[in-house]
């Protein structure tokens, strides 16, 4: 029987990679935006 494990691994890895990449970019942009907001609003 042919081994299909590779397909299972690929499906999970691709999903994890895309979600992680999106989350990472979002977090980075959010940090940046918060810093800008703090800059405009000292003490706010």
């Amino acid at each position, binding site marked *: 029987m042919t081994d299909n494990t590779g*397909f299972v691994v690929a499906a999970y890895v691709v999903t994890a990679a895309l979600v992680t990449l999106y989350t990472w970019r979002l977090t980075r942009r959010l940090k940046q935006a918060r810093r800008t907001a703090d800059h405009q609003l000292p003490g706010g």
Partner: protein
Amino acid sequence: MALPAVAVGLYLGLVWAPPDAMMGNVQRIMYVHFPSWIATALSYLTGFLCSVLYLVRRRPALDHLAQAGVEVGVLFNTTGLITGSIWGRPTWGVWWTWDPRLTTTAIMLIIFVGYLLVRAFLEDPDARARVGALVAIVGFVTLPIVYFSVRWWRTLHQPQSSPNTVDPEMVVALRTMMVAFALGAAYLISRRYELARLEAAAEQSEVEPGVGTA
């Protein structure tokens, strides 16, 4: 909160649940494929409801939440299509075929990608929000079409499964992953919403210095 659920779901889906009689272990792709669509549906639903509400109430916050919903929806729409393709190759024999389910799903994705592009293109926040809301509302019409496509038309994709057609242990694993993905989507939408809010404030203070900081 989503991460522990993913961890439990991964264990249940990849180790604990039995393989499928027909497909063997490839069936385990289901535990990441189907939850992707749950997350997609919830995210697009957020985008749709907030777009409708925005057109009624005209609150910028509703527009930000709509944008967040669509963007996260596009993410999970993409993972759903990719995992489906990877599942299709060893089981159906093809990565892709133009059956009504797959075609309508691709149309749904392209409309919401269009939504993001339109928003990126329009510079006036009001126009961006109004046009965006219209695209999101029209785009959301595709979601029930996608859902019912497997009942209305002949497809290669099988009709919806239910707890009656799926082994109980598989259902437990599937439900865990569904909850995990729903939580993950909710978290991402809330983060994306906050980003949209901050960006809008920054945008406004650029146009009218001093006003955005009030």
